[in-house]
């Protein structure tokens, strides 16, 4: 009985030693709004549409991304443009539905769609969650933390 008590006290001290040792280990906490995490190259954040070298839209409106999307978050409307060419009238991604799985990027046959490292996507209403063509062509506007 007495021996058991001694053993349990030793074990408690052993546990305490681990905790105390951590006082001298550098902290691993990232002070989030002030310090920022640099994401990996392959990070799957907010989608973005790309322009080609001539500054024209790469997207040809084939709708493969809309087709592969498991949650049907992408809506594309196409129509006839100048010179009888097919034109993308609207391109919308509802990021409230988006899974960020990256299947749309893999499906794009023109490399027009990519994923950025942007992960701060909160907004005040649902309408702000729907990114239109205009929003997807430029870098997303993000409110950065100011001290």
């Amino acid at each position, binding site marked *: 009985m007495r021996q058991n008590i001694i053993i*349990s006290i030793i074990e408690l001290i052993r546990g305490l030693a681990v905790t105390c040792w951590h006082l001298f280990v550098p902290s*691993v906490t990232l002070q989030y709004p002030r310090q920022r995490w640099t994401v*990996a190259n*392959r990070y799957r954040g907010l989608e973005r549409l790309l322009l080609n070298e001539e500054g024209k839209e790469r997207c040809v409106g*084939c709708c493969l991304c809309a087709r592969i999307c498991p949650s049907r978050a992408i809506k594309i409307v196409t129509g006839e443009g100048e010179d009888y060419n097919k034109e993308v009238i609207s391109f919308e991604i509802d990021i409230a539905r988006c899974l960020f799985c*990256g*299947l749309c990027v*893999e499906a794009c046959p023109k490399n027009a769609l990519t994923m950025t490292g942007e992960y701060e996507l909160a907004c005040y209403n649902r309408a702000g969650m729907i990114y239109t063509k205009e929003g997807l062509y430029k870098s997303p506007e993000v409110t950065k933390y100011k001290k």
Partner: protein
Amino acid sequence: MPETQEMIINMGPQHPSTHGVLRLVLNLDGEIITKVTPDIGYLHRGIEKLAEDMTYAQFLPVTDRLDYLAAVSNNLAYCLAVEKLLGLEVPKRASYIRVILTELNRIASHLVWIGTHALDIGAYTPFLYAFREREAILDIYELFCGARFTTSCFRIGGLPQDIPAGFVEKVEKFVKIFPKKVDEYEALLTKNEIWLRRTQFVGIISAEDGINYSLSGPSLRGSGVKWDIRKAEPYCVYDELEFDIPTGRGVGDVYDRYLVRMEEMRQSCKIVKQAIAKIPGGDFIANAAKIVPPPKERVLTDIEALIHHFKLVVEGFKPPKKEVYACIEAPKGELGFYIVSDGSNKPYRLKIRPPSFANLQSIYKMIEGGMMVADVVAIIGSLDIVLGEIDR
């Protein structure tokens, strides 16, 4: 003297130690539990039904949402099932990387388990230490596939892309430091008097009962049954790697299940160490033009590849008319996918065998023998359930 009555108490669905949205209806005689009735379904999303309206490739990201702590294991089980349906051979290189990622996932899942289980019982410190190490694993996932949590990091036939630069070094670094960290958790818990009193001889289930209640994974091995699908029916490249199956000290209580999972983390570490040294060269995805979409460079230059790409994205592949079952040893136990194909591009029926669902029912047996309300918390913690896969 007036007769005492049984009291009924609701535990959950918003109880922090039921690990999600599990509701337990407890019948109490004083403080002793006489009956327990689990009530599930609060997180039902109809994932099995969703599969019937998706092509095989489209369903993969949805499997992340089953056992969300072990998304990689879900991906692997689903990919293996579809590959079995198609009779598709996966390249060795892809298999090795798959093993590395799933074993890291087992460690990550067990780290969440040790953190929350200890937190439920009253030890706060291991929670902080375990999540620190889990971050390192999530960093590896971010490096490989770009997501930390819902990874979708495999494709049918192999991997979406090859391992990036710095991946091997990062894994090696983690494997090097991790065994010492497990020692740290053990120093805090394994022989701690409070921990022993709370876990020893609590929630006992015998080996025979465990098998009858279809327990699997570490919960069954805690009862002393040496059953591990990685050894019994090796998938991927597990037959080329060396590891032991830990069993507890043979009582089948909460403490035994704890010991098994702690040892399993060390074994997983050993597997990763071997696999990372053995990664062979070659392709990272199978060369099957009718199933796997062609690489992007060819899609942009070759019209035939472009046609294949369009056909595979729009229609998907059409597997033969067949029924298959494929299972893996997920962190929680046997995770299986049963697919019925009617020859079309979508599964006719997809049944998921989640380990937590089968493990939870053994709570009826574990509660026997004068368990108290506080012991239920320890028992649920030791079963390591995730409601995402119970309700699906």
